[in-house]
Each structure stands twice: as C-alpha cells, then as structure tokens.
C-alpha cells in the first residue's frame, strides 16, 4: 500500500517535505518512522489524515501521515 508522509520543521532536514512510501499491508506509523530514521523521541505530534494518530495503529492504503518534532506555540 502507498502512504503519503508529510514532514515538518527539523524533520525535513535530509528527508524532504513530502514522500510517498510503499509498505506491505498491516503496517503502522512505527514502520514509517523507522524507515525514515526518525527517532521516536523526535515525534511530538503524529497525525493520520489530520486526526490524532498513534505509532501502532494500522494504516490503510492512501493514508496521509503528518509528523512534527516538538514545535512552538503562539
């Protein structure tokens, strides 16, 4: 299945803004961040299709995963 991954702030360094990753079915955001070499502690906010996500939820083909490091407020 194909997952759109959107990265923000410092997570973009060396990885880019937006990637399409191909995964076997029954995979989770955990596999996504491992594949991109993102340490778990750098994941402050994880959204799946714009809604609060968890690292171990099952992804569906076509999902968008947005990942933010610790960011600011305003």
């Amino acid at each position, binding site marked *: 299945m194909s997952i759109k991954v959107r990265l923000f*702030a410092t997570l973009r360094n060396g990885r880019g803004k937006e990637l399409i990753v191909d995964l076997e079915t029954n995979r989770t955001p955990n596999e996504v961040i491992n594949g991109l070499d993102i340490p778990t502690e750098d994941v402050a906010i994880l*959204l799946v299709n714009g809604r609060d996500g968890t690292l171990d939820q099952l992804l569906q083909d076509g999902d968008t995963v947005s990942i933010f490091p610790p960011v*600011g407020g305003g």
Partner: protein
Amino acid sequence: MYGYAGKVLRVNLKERSWKVEALDVEKAKKYIGGRGLGTKILTEEVSPEVEPLSPENKLIFITGPLSGTPTPTGGRYMVVTKSPLTGTVACSNSGGYWGAELKFSGFDMVIVEDKADVPVYLNIVDDQIEIRDAAHLWGKVVSETTQILEKECAEKAKVLTIGPAGEKLSRLASIMNDYSRAAGRSGVGAVMGSKNLKAIVVKGSQKVQLFNHDQLKEVVSNCTKKIRENGVTGQGLPAYGTAVLVNIINENGVFPTNNFQTAVFDKAEEISGETLAEKYLVKKDPCYRCPIACGRYCKVDDIEGGGPEYETIWAFGSDCGVSDLGAVIKANYWCNEMGLDTISAGATIAAAMELYEKGYIKEDELNGVGLEFGNAEAVIEWTKRMGLRDGLGDKLAEGSYRLAEMYGVPEYSMTVKKQELPAYDPRGIQGHGLQYATSNRGGCHVRGYMISPEILGLPEKLDRFTLEGKALWAKIFQDLTAAIDASGLCLFTSFAMGAQDYADMLNAAVGTDFTAQDVLDAGERIWNIEKLFNLQAGIDPSQDTLPSRLLNEGIPEGPSQGLVHRLSELLPEYYSLRGWDTQGIPTVDRLNKLQISESALTTEEVAAGDK
C-alpha cells in the same frame, strides 16, 4: 521591600502634575502584581460604566514583581484600562525591554489620569519626572518617534509610544515599545491617544531588591534548565518562532481561512514557519532575559523589522486568503509603524473582504484598491489606510464588528465581545472554543491557551473533539495564565513550567510563602474581579458566546469537516466549576472564599442583584 519596586507614579495630564505614592504591598501580594494588581486598582478607581475614550478612564502601565529580576523572561509589563473595542477590562501584555526598565527606575507602575490639552510625552529618569511637549512627534510613525526620543532623552532610554492609529483613536490601536513589541489587543493605544499622550520614555539605574539571592539563583537555574530541555521552549520556538504553528494548525484542519469560511488553506506551506526561516529570517529578536527567544526579525525588499508572529501570518495570510509571505511581512511592518494590533487589523480586513464578496461593500468605496480574498497588495494598502483612517479605512479602524454592523450584518464579524478571534478554528478544538467564549477580554488565545493540551499535547494530549474534562482544563489554564501575567513573566514559560515553579520564583524574589495552589487561587481571584468589572460594565453572560457561524455551520472540508462548536454543552459545567450560578454570575460564596469582599465593586450586590 523585595521583588516590588515599592513606588507608584501617578500622573495627571490635565494638571500636568505627578506624585509618587507608596505601593500597598499587602494588596499587591494578594493580586501578585501586573494584570492582577492593575485590574484591582482599575476596579477601585474607575467606574466600569466609564466611556473608554473619555478623560475619566485611566491607563495603568504595570509590571509584576518578577519584572526586572533575573528570572527567565522577566521583562514584561501590562496595560490595564477599560477597552474601547470590547467595553470589558483590557489587559494587554508586552515584552521587550521597557517593562524591566520601568522597574529599574524605581516604579512598579504608572497610573495615567485625565487628558492633556495638547500632545505630550512623559519622560522618566529614575525619580526625575517630566511631562514634555510632543507636538513634534504627533502624526509620526512608531520607528521615527522612537528614534527622535532616543536622541532627545537619556542615553539608552527605552521608548513606548503610539502611532497614528492610536492618535486617531482606532479601536484596534496598540501601544508599541522597543520598536516592534506590542501591547497589542483591545485598543489600548486609542485610550492613550484619547489622553493626548504620545509616548513614555524610561531610564532607570536601580536594581530590584531580592528576598533571597541564593535561593532565587537556584530556582532560576532549575527553571532555565526546564525551559532548555523542553522540546517547545528549547527547540521549536527558538528555531522557528511561533510561525511553526502554520503547518501544524493547518494539518489539523483548524486554520481559519477567508474569514473562517473554511479551516484548510491549500497554500499554507507558502506562509509557513519553515518558509519564513528559509526565505526571510534575518535573526532572532528576543526580549529581556529570555532563554526562549521566539521573537523574529525579518526582511523583504526594503522593509525589515520585528516579527511576524504566527497570529499575524494567519490574520494577513490565510484569513485574507493571501499566500504571499512577503506581503504579510510588509503588512506586519505597517501595523508596527501605525501602532495597530496585527490580529484585529488582519481579521478586520478579512471581514471586509467577505462583506465585499457578498456584495455589502460596493466597488465605489474602494478608491482603487482591491478587496477580494487573496489580494496580497491590498492587505498592505488597507493596513495603511486603516492606520490613517483614509476612506473606507476609517470604517475598518473601528474593528470588524462595528464595520459589519454598519452594513447591517454583524454576523460576518468573527469576534467574541467585539474582539477579533485569533488563529484557531474552535469548531475542531472544543476546549479552546470554550476559552474564547469565556475570556474576560473577548476573542483571545492567551487567556488560557488550550491549544497546548488539545493540539501540542502539553502537558498531556487531550482529544480535541471531545468535551469531557475540557471545562476544568480551561478553568485551570485561565487561572494559571492570570497568575503568570500578574507575576511579570512570559506565558510561553508555561510550556515548560508549572504552578509550583512560579510559586518558587515568587517566594525567592518577593519573600512570599506561596504554594502552587496559592498561585492558582490568586489567578482565580484575578479572573473573578475581571468578570465583576465586566458585569458592571454591562457585559452580561449572554456575551459568553461565539459567532453563529462557528456554532451552526460545520467546517466544510478537511480533517475537521462537519464539526461545529458545542458551547452550550460546555458552559454549564464551566460556570459550576467556577462557583458561579447557572446564569454565569459569580456567587457570594465563591467570592468570599477568594477573599474578594472588600472590593470597591460592591460585588455582593452584583451577585445578588442579577440572580
């Protein structure tokens, strides 16, 4: 006397006189200072029914006991008065260096009374006070005024001033200090303009006395460590400023666009914090003793200066449908020069754009400048015209509520208590919406920043769609925020620090023996006297609401699609947690518990009378 400077400067502009009074320390401790003590004094000295732009209103510039101390971010001051925008109590908070400098001059606050017959400015060099003529400054923008005053006053003096917007009594006028720091909201600049007071220049040479130096040193080093180790205050804010929120709020589908007609902006990336850092950032621009340094200094073409903040990028960006970040930086620059609140100015242009789109504002009112969503050049031009009250800009200077009302359709104004809402669509963030509706100064995000738990996950992640527990969270955030404001620190410290940390700092600096609960209680006391002032000013609880669009029309697209704000389900629990009656009026019981009995407001009567 520790923490506090111990003196109050009272200036009467009509008589061109001033006197120094002793600070009432017991009262100060009860309300901590800043927002708390300032509001207490306002309630005692000014009738809540006063016309905000009349000489009878007073303007209080007040620091907290931690302002000017070695505590992190201890440079802040607040402006307390009755707001010409909302009719509520106004308390606008600003950073930079001016607040600390006032403290070094030996004063905790300046209370400005009445009105000068011609433009004047106030010059303070320790205990040397002068009321000087300001004819040569009237009409000048903020940077020019500041440069002139830096030359004609004491070396390294700090300058606070209004721009043309304040002189022309715009209800959106800010008070600026240190060039680009703003006591921005609620039209406090118009109150200053109404008094013919152009500026206050301060130079001080005194140190703030501390209760226990060593203890404070230790507490400060602990707190600074927490700030540096926290992801938001140690990494996110220093690297990107507040603008990093653009993408995160947009990804959540709660980024108000085209005057809240939708909550997703397809060009968010172009106005994001990441783009700002890549294309326009010159350097960081921190306030006094701030280890966080969220402030930005940016340049585009021949324009450079402080900012823009996230809220500003939103107001002139997505809320106006504009994706040109350079234009946003220019609009921000003109707000700082004119002395306009960026949130309300941008949001008012957004409302005007919708009024134009819907056919209420007609072509012949525009005088050659476009008013369609997405017009980047237009937001710059309308900002200038708003500041100068030129043409349709004269109507815009009144704020979006009065503007939309002039066309008979106030529902197009996205305001609470006539103040423009900031950059988060509450339909997809339920606790934050409750906070908007109940804020004592109307539409505002910094009376209780529920974005922190509901979006950023600090101190823990809450589901932004649900109602459970939100009323209690909102109340605690509101109370803690009031106490932080009162102490003279920046609210951003609270991403890393809790009530106990503030208690520790106050105890070491002032010599109090506050517990964490005492700090929250002081915050609740402040919240209640603000509420009582508002009630007596005629702002009844029916105004604890949101624009009907946000209560009745679902977000049309994106991750928060279909949602409305469920305020009526949250308000009863909130009132009950506050110890207020079902109508939203503080009860005598709770007021007694908070020791609000000696208030000049005759609080018991308010509570009893409205029941």
